[in-house]
C-alpha cells in the first residue's frame, strides 16, 4: 500500500513534468503540443543510446538529450505549429499528432520494437522506507521536480526572459507593442515543454523500460492531468498529477491495468463535468 503510494507519487511527478509542457505552450500561444508523449520517449531513447551504445556517463548523456529536445521543440513549433496558428487554423492538433507519429516511428526504426532497460545505479537496489521497498530513483524524482519548480519560479520572477514569457502569456498584443518577440517566446515555450518532457523520460525510463511507444499513454495521461488541474494553473496541474499517479497506482495494484485506465479517465470526465475549467481553474465570465 505504502509502496504503491510512494511509487505513485514518483509516477505523478513524471506526469506533472510532461503536463507542465502542455501548460507552457497553452499560455503563450493557446496551442497544445500533442507530441509531448513522443518528446518524452525521445528524451529517454537518446539518453539510452548515448549511455548504452556510446558508453557515456548518465549525467552528460541526460544533458545532451535534454538540449537536443529543446532544439526539437523549436523546430516543431516553427514547422508544425506556427504556419497553422498564423492562419487561425486548428490544424496544429493534427500536425502535432502527426509529428508524434513520425517521431515514434523514426525511433522504432532506429531503436527496434522491443523495450530496452535504461541502466541507472539508482534503480538497481531498492531501499527500505517505512517498510516499503523503493528505488532511490523514485525518491529522487520528486526532488528533481521540486528543484525544477523552484528554478522556474526564479526564472519567471527575476530574469528579463522570464518576464517576457509571462508578458506574452498575459497579453499577446501588448507584448508585441512593447517590443517582445512573441514568436520567439512561443518557440521557447515549445522548447521548454519538450525539455521538460525529456526530463520526465530520463527519470521514468529506468523504472518502466524504454521503448518507442512508451510515450503514448503517458502523454495522454499528462494531458488529462493538465486539463483536470486547469491548463493555466501550474500548481493545480502538479497537484492533479500527483493525485492521478497515486490513485492510478492504487487502482492498478488492486484491479489490474485496464481497470486503471477505465477508472482514471472516468474520473477525468467526472471532474470536468463538475468543474468545467479543471479543479483549480475558474470559469471566466464571458464579456458580451
Amino acid at each position, binding site marked *: 500500500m505504502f509502496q504503491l503510494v510512494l511509487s505513485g507519487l514518483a509516477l505523478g511527478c513524471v506526469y506533472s513534468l510532461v503536463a507542465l509542457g502542455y501548460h507552457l505552450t497553452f499560455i503563450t500561444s493557446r496551442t497544445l503540443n500533442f507530441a509531448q508523449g513522443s518528446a518524452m520517449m525521445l528524451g529517454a531513447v537518446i539518453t539510452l543510446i548515448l549511455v548504452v551504445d556510446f558508453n557515456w556517463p548518465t549525467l552528460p548523456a541526460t544533458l545532451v538529450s535534454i538540449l537536443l529536445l529543446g532544439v526539437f521543440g523549436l523546430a516543431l513549433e516553427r514547422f508544425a505549429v506556427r504556419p497553422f496558428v498564423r492562419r487561425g487554423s486548428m*490544424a496544429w492538433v493534427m500536425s502535432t499528432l502527426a509529428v508524434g507519429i*513520425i517521431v515514434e516511428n523514426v525511433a522504432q526504426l532506429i531503436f527496434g520494437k522491443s523495450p530496452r532497460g535504461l541502466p541507472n545505479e539508482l534503480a538497481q537496489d531498492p531501499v527500505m522506507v517505512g517498510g516499503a521497498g523503493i528505488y532511490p530513483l523514485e525518491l529522487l524524482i520528486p526532488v528533481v521536480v521540486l528543484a525544477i519548480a523552484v528554478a522556474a519560479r526564479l526564472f519567471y520572477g527575476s530574469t528579463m526572459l522570464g518576464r517576457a514569457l509571462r508578458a506574452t502569456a498575459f497579453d499577446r498584443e501588448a507584448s508585441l507593442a512593447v517590443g517582445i518577440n512573441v514568436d520567439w517566446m512561443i518557440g521557447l515555450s515549445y522548447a521548454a515543454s519538450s525539455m521538460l518532457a525529456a526530463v520526465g523520460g530520463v527519470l521514468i525510463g529506468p523504472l518502466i523500460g524504454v521503448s518507442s511507444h512508451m510515450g503514448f499513454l503517458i502523454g495522454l495521461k499528462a494531458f488529462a492531468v493538465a486539463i483536470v488541474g486547469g491548463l493555466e494553473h501550474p500548481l493545480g496541474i502538479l497537484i492533479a498529477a500527483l493525485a492521478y499517479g497515486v490513485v492510478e497506482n492504487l487502482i492498478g495494484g488492486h484491479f489490474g491495468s485496464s481497470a486503471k485506465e477505465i477508472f482514471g479517465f*472516468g474520473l477525468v*470526465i467526472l471532474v470536468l463535468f463538475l468543474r468545467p475549467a479543471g479543479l483549480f481553474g475558474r470559469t471566466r465570465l464571458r464579456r458580451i
Partner: protein
Amino acid sequence: MRGAIAGRWWLIGITAALVAAWLLPGLVGRYYTQMLALAGIYAIVAQGLNLLAGYAGQTSLGHAGFYAIGAYCGALLATKLGFGFWSALPFSMLLAGVAGVLIAVPSFRLEGPYLAMVTIAFGIIVASILVEWSDVTGGTQGVLNIPRPEIFGTRLPLERQFVLIILILALTTLLMRNLMRSPWGRAFMAVRENPIATEAVGLSTRRVKTIACTLSAALAGLGGHLFAFFQGFISPEAFEFEASIFFLTIVILGGAGTLAGPIVAAPVMVFLPELLQRFIDYRLIIYGTLIVAFLYALPLGIVGSLFRHWGRRPAYAPIGAAAEVATAQPAPSVRANTSGPVLELEGVRMSFGGVRALNGVGFAVEPGTIHALIGPNGAGKTVLLNVIGGYYRPTEGRIRLRRRDITGISPHAVARLGIARTFQTAQLFGEMTVLENVLIGFPGQTVGRLLDSALVTPRLRREEAERVAAARQLLDFVGFRGDLDARANSLPFGHQRLVEIARALAMNPILIAMDEPAAGLNRIAVLLVEHHMDLVMGISNRVTVLDYGEKIAEGAPAEVQANPLVIEAYLGAEDIDVPIAAPISA
C-alpha cells in the same frame, strides 16, 4: 418547377453511385473492392464526425468509441443472440446514439481542449472495456464468425456488400445534405459560429450540441456495425485512439464542414498506406509527413480548397431559397399588446467578485414605447442588458416579462419568451449567409422538428419558402440592400447591424433590447442602450440614466436632460471647467 427538378438530382446521384458500385468490383478485382468497401465504411463514420466537428464545431478525438460500440453491439447480437445484420442494425445505432447523449451531457460547459479531453477519455475507456470485459467482448481475441449481411435469406457476396455499403453511404450523405440546408443545419452551424448569438435567437446550445453528438454517434455506430459484418471478425486494435485520429484526419483532409469531404478523403486515407506498402518500415513516417504536408497545402481540406478556388462557399442554399413563392407575407407582426408594463425590473443587483456593477436598479418598460438606457461609460448599461437577457444571473432582484418572473432563466429561454437582443458589436453567424442569419431568427423551426429537417418534408419546404420570403421582406424593411448570399463576416459593420436587427425582428419579439444600435424602430417596445444623445433624446419616449450601477434619474427626455444629477454624471462636478460644444458621445 425548379424545385421539382432540383429535388430529383439526389435520385440521379444515388442511382449513379449504385450503378458504379455494381460495376466497379468486376473492373478492379476482389482486393481493391475490399479496400473501397472499407473506405465507404470510414466515409460513413467520417460523415457523422463531420456533422459534429465540421458543422457543429465540436471536435471529437474519441469517435472510435462510438464506432466500437456499434461494431460490438452488432457483432455480439449476431453471434450470441442470433440476430441478423438488419435486425441488429437499429440497436447498434441506438446504443451508439445513447453513448453520444452520455458524452454530450457532461460536455455542455466545456470548450476547446477541455472538450477534446472528455472525448479522448471516452475513447480510451471504451477501448479498455473491450479488453477488460472479456467474458462478453472476447477480450483481445475479439468476436469471430460474425455472419455476413443477408437480403431475402441470401448471404451477400463481397461485390454486393460493397453495393450495400455505397447505398448506405449515399443515404447518409443525402441525410446530411438535407439537414444542412434546413433549420437544424443552421442550428448546428450557428453553435459553431457563435454560441452567444445562438442563445440570443432562442436556440438552446445544449440541445443543439446534444442532437449533433447523438446523430454523429449513431452514424459512427452504423459504420461500426457495417465494419463488423463486413469483416466477419473484430478485435480491440481497430478501435484504439489511433482510429479516432484517423477519422478526424479524414474529416479535416476532406474539408471540415463540406458534404463531399469525407467521401473524397476516405479513399485517399485508405489507399495512401497501400501505395506506401513497399516502404513498409517507413510507412507511418511518410504517412505522418504527408498529413502535415496536406494540412499545410490545403488548409480548408481537399473539397473546401476546391470550393474556395471556385469562389464558392461550401454550404448549401436553404431549401426555400429555390422556391419562387410570391405569397405576400404579413409585415413583422407584433404580439397582442396587453395592458401594463412589458418589462419590469425590481432592485436588480449584480456583483462581480467585489465589484458592484448594478446596485438595486428598478424601472419598467411600457408597451409600444422606446425606452432609452443611458449613462457614462462603466455605468452598467450593458451589464443590465446581459442580466435581462439571461446571460448573467443577478445577485439580487427580480425581472418580469409581462408579469412573468424570468429572473435567472437561460438566454435562449428569455429569447423564446419574447426578448430579442442586439449587441454592442453585432453578433452574427460569420460564415453563414445574410439570408441564413435572418432565417435562423424565426421561432418554432427546430424543436420537435428534426425529422422534418432530415427528410425535407413538404411541410418543411412550404415553411422554408415562407420564411425565406419573410426574411427578404425584413431585410428590405431594415434597409439592407446588399447581397443576401454574402457571408455575414464579409459585410461592413453598418450592414452587419442591419442584419442583426432583421434577425431580432424575425423572432417576433415583445421587446427588443438594443445595445448601441444607432438606429431606431417603432411598434415594438424597445429598450435601448446608447451614447448618442441626439439620437436618444430624439426618438425615446422614456429615458433611464444609470451611474455606478444605480439608477440616478428617469423620465421623459427633456426632464432627464435638465436633471442636475445627470449633468454631473456626464460632465463631472461643476467646478471642472470643460468647454462642451456638442452632445457627449463617449
